[in-house]
């Protein structure tokens, strides 16, 4: 019934082969995507364990599992880890792996910069977690409000670890944002106009632009903080004429777009998964694209809704409140269009669809409580209470995590070349839905009952222990669900059924190539005449009432290239430059000499990198002219 691509299973089993050296020097976007994915999932476990300790501490009144300082460190690391070490890199994993495949490109625009981004992220994340071994993890919250982060009130090294590592990871984000912006704009296959770009890639593009514009303000904020802490300036020190509220503005000008940086990739995944499994095109794709752009644009004008209790005055509160409410409009459009995509389809209930639908259903709850917070009178009761904790977890867990798991299950066969278990996948889904709602829904009640965030203990007579206990039970159900996922993943990798090129009968270009793809992705440059090029090839234009009825689809890729393909050669210089950059940051905690060594390594690495030709003798090449060599 479902046409299969001519290339069934890949003959190129060599994609992931090779020793550790080949991974350290790789510039292949697919391998870098896998590296991002493994790192992010590992940190998901780390951040999850931190969350479980937090939940155990709060399970009953007057908990004594951890002390006050440890608790403050745990929620700071949990937040920072989940935002910068899990959700962003997990999105980056899917971006890296899928974007070139979905736009018909052989790699990203700057493959070595891509490697540099990954290693810089990894070293930055390691630096952050080294703070545990140095005995002083950061303790001022992931938002690190000044002046609690000043030397006077925070003399330890925790804040230094935090600001330097997030700063380093910011470099990685900006570099990768430039890379993917150029890739998406310049490297699309012939015929793929912007309106034919898949929704996932569109949302990725919006995310790259958000990162480009949002990271500079936080970089400035961190530089001010760095100067305050290391060189005695007073940007945030009120006793010396500085203003701590400046930090709040700079942080949230970054922080709110960051919310969309975290959620839009998931919107993109859902916009791919729902059409595939309802066997229909995405309903109102142009509306979806423009609403995504609008969400990103409005995201820069709403930062002060995080500051309704700061005391900015009624006029500012009104302006930011109304701007925030406007975001509900494009978000509502997305939800309705997703439901309309399902409407009238033939819905196939596979695991990716479960997670995509779960994302829609749960994100609605987070979106609606977000509308409550958009109203300052309501927000000043809910701000910094557990109501907000519930809200943000419905957005980031219900929204982002479910969306990204939809993506993982959807593209798993493409990435690994193996199918992943449906039974365990659905068990994972149901456990996660139950656990997630048990954990986070009661937090609404706690917030309404007056329980503030970030407290390590509460008195028994406040009546908060019942819902807290339920939340703790839910957290462990989530933990079990994640365990089920890892078991499922391991089973698939060891003994999973081999995946065909196109197991879901999907519409986009990545399914025209083998699973896993050959190193060069596309043997022939695909020609694209539709937003659903592969669907058009398989099912023809007859039943398609779109405007593309006369177009031809994109064929499945031939097994071997007819012409020689040269790929960029592996390079060790990006990882060396990344190491140097991280030493520049991390060295600040040791001494000037360490910084200078970092500078030397960075300069040397970038110098050698700059003068290394992109392709040199021994670089991977494929096709007729090179068959003898490989």
């Amino acid at each position, binding site marked *: 019934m479902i046409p299969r691509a001519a290339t069934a299973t890949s003959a190129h089993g060599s994609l992931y082969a090779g020793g550790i050296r080949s991974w350290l020097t790789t510039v292949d976007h697919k391998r870098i995507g896998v590296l991002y994915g493994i790192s992010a999932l590992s940190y998901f476990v780390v951040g999850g364990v931190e969350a479980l300790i937090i939940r155990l501490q709060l399970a009953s009144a007057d908990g004594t599992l951890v002390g*006050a300082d440890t608790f403050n460190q745990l929620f700071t690391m949990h937040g920072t880890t989940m935002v910068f070490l899990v959700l962003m890199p997990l999105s980056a994993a899917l971006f890296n792996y899928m974007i070139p495949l979905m736009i018909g490109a052989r790699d990203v625009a700057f493959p070595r910069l891509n490697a540099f981004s990954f290693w810089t992220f990894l070293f930055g994340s390691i630096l952050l977690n080294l703070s545990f071994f140095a005995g002083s993890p950061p303790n001022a919250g992931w938002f690190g*409000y000044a*002046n*609690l982060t000043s030397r006077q*009130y925070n003399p330890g090294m925790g804040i230094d670890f935090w600001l330097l590592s997030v700063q380093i990871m910011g470099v990685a984000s900006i570099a990768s944002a430039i890379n993917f912006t150029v890739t998406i704009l310049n490297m699309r296959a012939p015929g793929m106009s912007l309106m034919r770009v898949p929704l996932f890639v569109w949302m990725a593009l919006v995310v790259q632009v958000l990162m480009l514009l949002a990271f500079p303000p936080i970089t400035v904020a961190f530089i001010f903080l760095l100067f305050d802490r290391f060189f005695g300036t007073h940007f945030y020190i*009120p*006793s010396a004429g500085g*203003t701590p*509220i400046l930090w709040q503005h700079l942080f949230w000008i970054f922080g709110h777009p960051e919310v969309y940086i975290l959620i839009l990739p998931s919107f993109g995944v859902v916009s791919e998964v729902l059409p595939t499994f*309802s066997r*229909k*095109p995405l*309903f*109102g794709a142009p*509306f979806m694209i423009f609403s995504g752009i609008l969400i990103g644009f409005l995201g820069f004008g709403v930062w002060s809704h995080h500051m309704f*209790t700061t*005391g900015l*005055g*009624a006029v500012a*509160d*009104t302006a930011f*409140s109304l701007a925030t*409410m406007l975001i509900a*409009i494009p978000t*509502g*459009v997305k*939800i309705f269009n997703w439901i309309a995509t*399902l*409407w*009238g*389809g*033939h*819905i196939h209930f596979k695991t990716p669809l479960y997670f995509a639908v779960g994302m829609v259903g749960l994100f*609605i*709850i987070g979106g*609606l409580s977000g*509308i*409550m917070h*958009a*109203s*300052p*009178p*309501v*927000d*000043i*009761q809910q*701000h*910094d209470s557990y109501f907000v904790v519930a809200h943000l977890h419905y957005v980031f867990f219900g929204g982002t995590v479910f969306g990204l798991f939809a993506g993982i299950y959807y593209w798993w066969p493409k990435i690994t070349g193996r199918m992943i278990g449906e039974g365990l996948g659905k068990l994972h889904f149901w456990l996660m839905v139950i656990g997630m709602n048990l954990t986070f829904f009661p937090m609404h009640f706690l917030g*309404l*009952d*007056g329980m*503030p965030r970030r407290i*390590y203990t509460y008195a028994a007579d*406040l*009546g908060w222990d*019942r819902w807290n206990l339920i939340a703790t039970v839910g957290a462990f159900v989530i933990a079990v669900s994640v365990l089920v996922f890892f078991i499922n993943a391991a089973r698939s990798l060891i003994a999973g059924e081999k995946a065909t090129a196109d197991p879901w009968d999907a519409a986009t270009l990545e399914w025209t190539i083998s699973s896993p793809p050959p190193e060069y992705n596309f043997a022939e440059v695909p020609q694209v005449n539709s937003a659903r090029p592969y669907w058009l090839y398989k*099912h023809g234009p007859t*039943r*398609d*009432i779109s405007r593309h009825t006369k177009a031809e689809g994109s064929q499945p890729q031939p097994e071997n290239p007819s012409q020689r393909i040269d790929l960029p050669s592996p390079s060790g210089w990006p990882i060396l430059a990344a190491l140097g950059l991280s030493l520049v940051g991390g060295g600040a905690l040791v001494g000037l000499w360490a910084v200078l060594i970092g500078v030397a390594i960075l300069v040397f690495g970038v110098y050698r990198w700059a003068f290394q030709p992109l392709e040199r003798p021994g670089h991977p090449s494929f096709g007729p002219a090179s068959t003898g060599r490989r």
Partner: protein
Amino acid sequence: MRSLPEIQRQLLDPDRSWRVPLTPTGSACTLPPFLRVFEHWSIRLFRPLDAVSREQSILHKTLLAALLTLIAGCSTVEPPEWRTLHPESDFGHLILNVYGDLFWWTAGIFVVVELLLVYALLRFRSRRTDSEVPEQVHGFTALEIGWTLLPAAILFFIAIPTVRTIFQLQGPPPGGDPLEITVIGHQWWWEFQYPELGIVTANELHVPVGRTANLALSSADVIHSFWVPQLGGKRDLNPGSENRLWFTPTKTGVYHGQCAELCGTSHANMRMRVFVDDSATFAEWTTSMREPATPDSAGAMAFQMSGCAACHAIAGTPAQGKVGPNLTNVGRRTTLAASMIPNTPEKMADWLRAPDSVKPGALMPDLNLDEQRIRDLVQFLEGLR
């Protein structure tokens, strides 16, 4: 177990409060407004009881009992008060009005959208008899414009009460002659000054019922946030600038409050109690604070000698330290260490013996007092009333 019709009558009674007695012991169950939706739904679900068979009726009873027990968390445990939803001030009621509007709008949207989603999933699941490919609908512009305008229209109805209330809440305090109070946040305790009355106290705020309290909020160190859920919303205490917050308490009682902005190690222990007093009680309290009984001079000497006076002030004694909480009439307070522990001689002795082990990170130093000195100090301090 009460009979089902009885429960139904209670649930349907328009005048009922949200406390629904369910258990024979008569302990109350509070249904949070979030769950009012479920409550109405369950009533509708179980209304046609007469029409169903006996087995079903038993099943329904069990289900309803389970549902209500589950969602209301009914047990012999004293129910939570849902503090932000039971405000006892004008400020809190202004907020609750907007919350009520928003709750119903969002609850309505939630139900409609989730039902649409579930309906689409059930109705359009693939069947064996399906043709290979469903009709390929790419969009429907009129519909899409419709559901762009619909949220915009709803937002209009949310925005109006929101904006009106923003200006009410941030406007000048209502009525004449508010009671001016200066609140200063410290790591990790609250300083309350009554400039007109010449009173300085800590951690236990006294305000008269029915008179607007007009708070000037600032901080001595890092950012804190003043929050007494039943008296209204929170407002930050920023170092180096001043914020305003007013509320008119409408019911006497003791209200729990707490710092809501992470402010360091013992953020969780920066608690307070607000006593909303009737006018006679408040007058008695102000008099006692302005004219405290003369403390016994031996105790005052011990206070001075132990180093306590370097940080603490006690009206009517030489102790005039400004760093720590003012201890005038400390014996009258119900709690110690920012509402962490009850004010008993034993707890106060624990506190003097090792402040840091009572309250992590406490800035009050351990003065290595011997037990005799601790007994003297406790007797002296508890006598300040």
